[in-house]
Every structure is written in C-alpha cells, then in structure tokens.
C-alpha cells in the first residue's frame, strides 16, 4: 500500500507521519507538496499536523484552497482512505469533508500531553485493529481542538456511528468529548490526537500504530487477491 503525506507550508508533523508509515508500519510512503495536481497512484492520503499557512485567518482556512485539496476531495470521493491529524483535521473541516468546526481550547492554552482515548467505534477502516471500547494513550498538541457542531449535525454523527474516538478526560472543551470523527461513508477520518507520535514504546506509547494497521488491513482485504 502506498501513502501520500501532504506537505503544506507550515506543516511540522510530516516527518513523524512519514517515519510512522515507512519505519514502523513498513509500507510505501512519499511526501507530496501542496501544489501537486494529481494524487493518482496513492492508495491512502495523510494530512499531517502543523500550522499550515501560519494558521492565518482560521486554522486550515487557507490550506483548504491549495491546489492539492481538489485532489484530496477527489480521492475521498473515490473512496480512498483519507486521514487528517490535528491541523489535518482542521483542514478537512474547513474543506467540508467533515462536518463541524474548531474553536480555541476552553482553557485558551496550547495543550501538549498524552491523553487517554476511548475507541468509540471499532468497526471502521481506521479502528478495526482495536477492541470495542478499548482505552488507548495518544498525545495531543493543539491550541484549537475544541470541536463544535450544531445539534442536528451531532445527532447525525451519533446516528451514523461517525464518532470514532472520544477523550476519557476532556482536555479542550470539545463537544461530547469528541476527539475524532469520520464522514458518513467511513473513508475520511479527522482526529486531534497524534497517532504518528505513538508508534513505538520508546516514544511512550505504540497505541497509535493500530490506526495505520487498520487502514492497511482494510485495503489488503479489498485489493489483494487471496492465494
């Protein structure tokens, strides 16, 4: 399976993401610059964390109009797995690939620490390697992770089981402890915690690796002919 790590001016978790895929997951991966006009040949799209375009105006607001985002939307429409982490999640929200928006953390502080998450839905292409309701530890690092959506959107998220990860102890004030949601189709996931920073026990936790393993497992089941 071949992954693309999209790099915007101001991305700063792209190298961690690349390392997680190449060295820990053992799959193919390439950096893709934001002005690329094709994502053909990539099976999975990763939007890393950082401060794309300096977070000017709003987090993700400028990045969503970059050339590559048209291709990311195309890939999502084609059913390819798209994962946005932290700033990547914020970009997916601004692009309308996921519903809702991000506000400043309730505390107004930048929060950078490992947090406990609950796997709220383990029947997705991003979480099928976890047990149901499993508690995992993955670090967060953000100033704007206070997820918000209106009541109708929240009801839809719940009805379609689109809430994939929730915080055990809410660090930022996000609605319903939401840490990660997917689209209705189930192939676009956005999450504030950084799974790429939790891929080896040497880093404090290897709990994030299963997200990438879930993606690969689902892809293999669909694309690799059984011998």
């Amino acid at each position, binding site marked *: 399976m071949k992954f693309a790590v999209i790099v915007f001016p101001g991305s700063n978790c792209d190298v961690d993401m690349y390392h997680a895929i190449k060295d820990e997951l053992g799959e193919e991966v390439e950096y893709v610059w934001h002005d690329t006009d094709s994502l053909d040949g990539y099976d999975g799209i990763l939007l890393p964390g950082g401060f794309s375009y300096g977070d000017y*105006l709003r987090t993700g*607001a400028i990045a969503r*109009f970059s050339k590559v985002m048209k291709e990311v939307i195309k890939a999502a429409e084609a059913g390819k797995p798209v994962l946005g982490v932290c700033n990547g999640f914020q970009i997916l*929200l601004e692009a309308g690939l996921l*519903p809702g*928006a991000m*506000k400043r953390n309730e505390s107004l502080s930048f929060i950078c620490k490992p947090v406990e998450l609950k796997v709220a839905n383990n029947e997705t292409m991003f979480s099928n390697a976890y047990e149901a309701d499993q508690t995992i530890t993955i670090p967060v690092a953000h100033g704007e992770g206070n997820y*918000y*959506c*209106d009541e109708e959107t929240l009801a839809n998220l719940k009805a379609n089981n689109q809430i994939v990860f929730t915080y055990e102890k809410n660090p930022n004030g996000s609605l319903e402890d939401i840490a990660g949601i997917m689209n209705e189709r189930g192939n676009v996931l956005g999450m504030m915690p950084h799974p790429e920073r939790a891929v080896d026990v040497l880093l404090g936790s290897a709990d994030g690796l299963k997200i990438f393993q879930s993606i690969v497992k689902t892809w293999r089941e669909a694309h690799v002919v059984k011998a």
Partner: protein
Amino acid sequence: MYKVKVYVTLRESVLDPQGKAVTNSLNALNYNEVTDVRIGKYMELKIEKSDRDIHEVINEVCSKLLANPVIEDYRYEVEECVAQ
C-alpha cells in the same frame, strides 16, 4: 473603488472562550457592569468597482473565506473611495 470593513465574530449560539476569559478579567477589575465580551476579527478590504453588485461580491468572499459559517457571523460596512 470601495473600502469595505468586515467584522467577524463567533455566532451568538456559540460560546466564545476568549470573550468569557476577558469578561471574567474585567469583572475581577471591579467592572461589574460588563456582563459580556465577544471577541472577533476586523478586516479592511479594498475592492475595485466591477459589473457585479458590490454586496454580492462581499457576501461571497465572506462566506467562502473570511468567516466560517459553521461558527461565525459577519457584518460589513461599505464606503466609496477614490482609487489611489
């Protein structure tokens, strides 16, 4: 040429964490008559006259980029000015 002043704030229904902190801070300074603060953004745009209705153009740029309609409202003022 138009000079357009755009004000973007969080919607009334959305809790503003910054505004709440500033309200508390003002109350701590004994300005108890201050009951609410909403913090927003102020932007000045210069827009050239064209065939298109100026209000249509402003509403488009506001809803597309300057404000996020999921959580933000905007209002604006338009002044005609001489191009420099």
